[in-house]
């Protein structure tokens, strides 16, 4: 082998691999076309094989040359229509291209490869003789070698296959053998012969050579823009040096801004070079599905959507294995045998759809099949029988949790172990791999209908938005993908909302129980708390979080007896001075989610969200599992990035926390919820000092602190720069007769999302979130922009209608919103039945409906609504109902309606203040079509319009 020029060789390898990548898909297309040969396609494959042959010949890679030559022969025959491609021929060609790829990836030892098993069938096809099975066992020729097999083994194991000369001394015959110059039909090294060890060794002899430095194709226009940016950077640097030289401070600021701008553009452009289309990974799946379905005697059609979606190179590389596993799973377990499909009335051909698309700054990859779906009950039963969970745990699990059992280590659903999948290591490994990438998996499955697995991935790994928090005086970053929400429990509610279940602490969050982990405990840092009065971290000596009296808890024994004694003795004097009763004692919780679970991380302080650059930690710190890396903050110090799924593991938190007590508490909490009236979560704020306002909390997207100077007055509208765009700003006094916005420097912007545009409401503090149960007064203080009033903690509070304000100030935004056009369609005014016990909400919803041109019939509870429905059965086209109502609640009403065949087609939309997953599931089960949050006018009306359009 004389490979003199590494660069040329490298070029050959890259080019050949590219050709091979195409060959595979093209061969599959050729197979599909059958006798109906697409010449262009065949030509393309032919040329690819030909170029590989040519390159290999030039490089002296005789074996590669020989194999590609044999393949080229057959392709030539197909091209000249002497041969009709059938699956067998394509199979042989595919295997040949696999072998070629393997050899090219390991080019230095390619000349020692044995390719007879490929050459025989290839030549047989070329000669037109009857085709042997794909992998023929060549007749063993035991004669050849006098040398004992032992030295062969020894030689084969040597990690450097290039040491030809040294080996040649040992066993010249053997050396000569595997480099066949001419294709001899008789195999020279018998596959079955000498000793099993030698064949085994032969496979190990190909060291898993790390693929040579990979190169990347970048579009010239992108390179050009990089060059331009680099040029600009140089110019700005010169400018900067000049300004520094002349001590011109004012100019320095301008130059600084310029450099800032160029740097971010440069960064963006460089990130773009790393983006690769996901098609690179997807392209191999047609082959995988074809081979596998053939092996399993299934017919499956694979549809691929979204090849062009781009992801960071590193993600593309690491997504390959998990995706392959999932696709194979779908083929093996998802899609049934053709006969079974026919029996249940499905088409014999199964369908698998592989789809990639963008959603909310992330890329979603979906693998869906129309197979038999996952049976939650069967999964749970299997998990119980394997001893992974207890029967009691299985009983209280929701369907989603049951399906997620598939991610448990040691869980395999396959009834029998096939070599395709189902070895008991599978989904858990997939999940771990995806966790590492910052991805999340979600499974939606319906028995008999199919399974959809969605993987959410960040666009890039290099720069990620993070929430910064502080604990024990150090800053930590939590990736935003894991972040669900931030929760602050005021000191006076901690005792009420934090409980102990078993030996774990949990917090009540909207009727659900959320397990809590203290960051300081998990990473074994000193437990501290932040004292805002002294602006310092102080050591925290408390036991459990909810522990307001120093009770010792089994989990946090560290407090010891002394603390308890001390507490007992002077509880009374301490009441006022004790920090547990001051603001600093509020609990800051970061609610994070991993793919399998959600938990609360208790931290000292919450800080900003920032975009950070991930840097790896040194090898001495690899054992610290709690960190995903580190980043350098603006002030030059380092903050560690937390790995939330590993933290959960370190805290021994499992997703299935089904102790009896948890069950009990959950039931009690649910009972409590039921006993209470509707709760409405409100965000309280002020606009001027004297008037208190509120908005529904679930409409609020974010709250930002800003300075008055950031507000720009442009074209008669107020805007500010926000996340790279302009944020329209409104105030309550824009359209309502209230006091004007207080004239102070520090302002708050409450960000809403209306008509899918962000809009900011200017406000001042203090802000607070409260849950109210009292009735809202929709009359006394009603005026434009104010939907009603309510008394909260002794203050009259006006409920702001942000939607109305925006509609008044920016009517254009609503221009393209669909308005139901009654006359045009049928001439009938559709009537909607509203069931709602609260006057305020009923009037609000009624307002929305009548405004859009619907007729409304209202009932104050479920029973009244049911009577009304029977009376006006002819007119009513849709029911909009509250859930919590006296006499007959929304679930019962729905059930009653659905039971009656006369009404079971009427769409039913439920309105709720708290949409918990279980409630939604329950609602769907009784027949509710849609769930909407009260006062979210936009979504509710879009949904109503949609249904009406379908009806008329």
């Amino acid at each position, binding site marked *: 082998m004389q490979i003199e020029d590494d660069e040329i060789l490298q070029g050959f390898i890259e080019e050949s691999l590219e050709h091979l990548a195409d060959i595979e898909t093209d061969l599959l297309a050729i197979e599909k076309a059958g006798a109906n040969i697409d010449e262009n396609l065949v030509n393309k494959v032919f040329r690819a094989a030909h170029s590989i042959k040519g390159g290999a010949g030039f490089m002296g890679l005789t074996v590669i040359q020989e194999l590609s030559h044999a393949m080229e022969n057959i392709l030539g025959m197909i091209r000249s229509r002497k041969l009709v491609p059938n699956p067998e021929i394509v199979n042989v060609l595919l295997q040949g291209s696999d072998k070629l790829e393997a050899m090219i990836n390991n080019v230095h030892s390619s000349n020692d490869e044995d390719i007879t098993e490929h050459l025989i069938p290839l030549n047989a096809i070329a000669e037109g003789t009857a085709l042997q099975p794909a992998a023929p066992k060549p007749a063993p020729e035991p004669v050849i070698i006098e040398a004992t097999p032992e030295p062969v083994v020894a030689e084969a194991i040597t990690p450097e296959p290039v040491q030809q000369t040294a080996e040649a001394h040992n066993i010249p015959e053997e050396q000569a053998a595997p480099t066949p110059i001419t294709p001899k039909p008789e195999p020279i090294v018998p596959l079955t012969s000498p000793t099993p060890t030698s064949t085994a060794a032969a496979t190990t002899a190909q060291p898993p050579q790390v693929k040579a430095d990979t190169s990347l194709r970048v579009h010239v226009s992108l390179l050009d823009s990089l060059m331009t940016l680099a040029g600009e950077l140089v110019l700005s640097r010169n400018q900067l040096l000049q300004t520094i030289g002349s001590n011109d401070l004012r100019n320095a600021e301008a130059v600084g801004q310029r450099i800032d701008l160029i740097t971010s553009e440069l960064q963006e452009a460089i990130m773009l070079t790393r983006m690769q289309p996901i098609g690179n990974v997807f392209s191999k799946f047609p082959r995988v599905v074809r081979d596998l379905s053939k092996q399993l005697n299934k017919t499956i059609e694979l549809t691929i959507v979204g090849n062009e979606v781009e992801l960071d190179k590193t993600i593309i590389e690491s997504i390959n294995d998990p995706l392959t596993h999932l696709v194979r799973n779908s083929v093996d377990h998802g899609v049934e045998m053709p006969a079974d499909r026919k029996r249940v009335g499905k088409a014999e051909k199964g369908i698998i759809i592989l789809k990639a698309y963008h959603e909310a700054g992330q890329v979603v990859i979906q693998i869906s099949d129309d197979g038999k779906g996952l049976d939650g009950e069967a999964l749970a039963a299997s998990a119980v029988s394997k001893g992974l969970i207890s029967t009691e745990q299985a009983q209280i699990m929701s369907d989603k949790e049951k399906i997620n059992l598939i991610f448990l280590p040691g869980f395999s659903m396959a009834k029998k172990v096939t070599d395709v999948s189902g070895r008991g290591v599978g989904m858990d490994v997939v999940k771990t791999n995806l966790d590492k990438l910052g991805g999340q998996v979600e499974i939606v499955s319906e028995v008999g209908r199919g399974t959809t697995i969605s993987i959410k991935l960040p666009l890039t790994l290099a720069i990620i938005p993070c929430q910064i928090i502080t604990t*024990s005086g*150090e800053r930590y970053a939590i990736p935003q993908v894991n972040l669900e929400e931030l929760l602050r429990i005021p000191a006076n509610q901690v005792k009420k909302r934090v409980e102990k279940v078993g030996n774990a602490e949990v917090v009540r969050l909207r009727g659900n129980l959320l397990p809590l982990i203290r960051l300081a405990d998990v*990473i*074994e*840092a000193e437990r501290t708390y932040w004292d805002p009065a002294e602006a310092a971290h102080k050591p925290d000596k408390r036991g459990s979080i909810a522990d307001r009296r120093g009770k010792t808890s089994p989990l946090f024994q560290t407090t010891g007896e002394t603390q308890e004694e001390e507490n007992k003795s002077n509880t009374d004097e301490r009441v006022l001075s004790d920090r547990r009763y001051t603001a600093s004692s509020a609990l800051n919780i970061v609610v994070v989610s991993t793919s399998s679970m959600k938990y609360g991380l208790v931290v000292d302080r919450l800080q900003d969200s920032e975009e950070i650059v991930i*840097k*790896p*930690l*040194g*090898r*001495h*710190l690899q*054992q*610290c599992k*709690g*960190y995903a890396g*580190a980043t*350098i903050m603006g002030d*030059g*110090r*380092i*903050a*560690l990035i937390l790995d939330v799924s590993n933290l959960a593991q370190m805290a021994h938190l499992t997703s299935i926390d089904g102790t009896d007590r948890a069950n009990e508490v959950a039931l009690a909490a649910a009972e409590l919820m039921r006993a209470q009236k509707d709760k409405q979560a409100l965000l309280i704020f002020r606009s001027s000092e004297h008037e208190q306002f509120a908005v529904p909390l679930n409409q609020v997207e974010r709250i930002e602190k800003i300075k008055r100077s950031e507000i720009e007055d442009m074209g008669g509208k107020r805007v500010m720069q926000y996340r790279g765009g302009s944020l329209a700003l409104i105030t309550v006094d824009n359209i309502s007769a209230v006091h004007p916005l207080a004239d102070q420097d520090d302002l708050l912007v409450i960000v809403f999302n209306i008509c899918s545009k962000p809009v900011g409401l200017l406000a001042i503090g203090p802000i607070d979130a409260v849950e109210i149960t009292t009735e809202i007064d929709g009359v006394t203080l009603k005026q434009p922009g104010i939907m009603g009033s309510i008394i909260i903690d002794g203050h009259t509070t006006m409920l702001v209608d942000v939607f109305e304000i925006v509609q008044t100030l920016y009517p254009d935004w609503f221009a393209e919103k669909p308005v139901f056009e009654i006359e045009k369609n049928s001439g009938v005014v559709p009537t909607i039945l509203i069931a709602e016990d609260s006057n305020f909400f009923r009037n609000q919803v009624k307002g929305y409906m009548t405004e859009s041109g619907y007729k409304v019939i209202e009932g104050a509870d479920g029973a009244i609504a049911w009577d009304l429905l029977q009376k006006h059965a002819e007119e009513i086209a849709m029911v909009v109902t509250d859930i919590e109502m006296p006499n007959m609640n929304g679930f019962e009403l729905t059930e009653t309606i659905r039971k009656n065949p006369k009404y079971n087609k009427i769409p039913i939309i439920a309105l709720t203040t708290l949409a918990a997953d279980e409630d939604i599931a329950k609602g769907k089960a009784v027949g509710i079509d849609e769930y909407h949050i009260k006062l979210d006018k936009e979504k509710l009306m879009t949904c109503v319009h949609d249904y009406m359009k379908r009806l008329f």
Partner: protein
Amino acid sequence: MNETKSTTNILVELATFYIGDALCGMDILKIQEINKLMDMTKVPQAPSYVIGILNLRGQIVTIIDLGKKLGLGATDATLSSRNIIVNSPGEHVGLLVTRLSDVISADTDKIERAPANMGGIQGEFFSGVYKTADRLIGILDINKVLRLEDQGH
């Protein structure tokens, strides 16, 4: 005085420093830089000999307390203590030492095998011992010191 005699011999320059009271040295070419203590970030749950990590011009550097790593007890961070930044495979590592001493030229011929124990430090961490007129300098084998298997002691 060594230099004048042994012009024909190979000389290595040793940077010497104190770990506690023990005088150690290492080949100066293995040192990237030496700096004063900077603002470090603690890493909870790290091995005890890792004091923290710091930002060295955009690189994250793990700082190791050499005293603790070699079993001499924690090094006090004082005004005279320094970080010796060395290149470890794939990353930079900082070694915290009590104080610096001179740079000396050592005659390779005169470097002797290290004893089993020297000033409380196990001999395996030394690649040799160099004798000056009045002192013994243990020459640290940095690769051994930074090896992961032995966690601290």
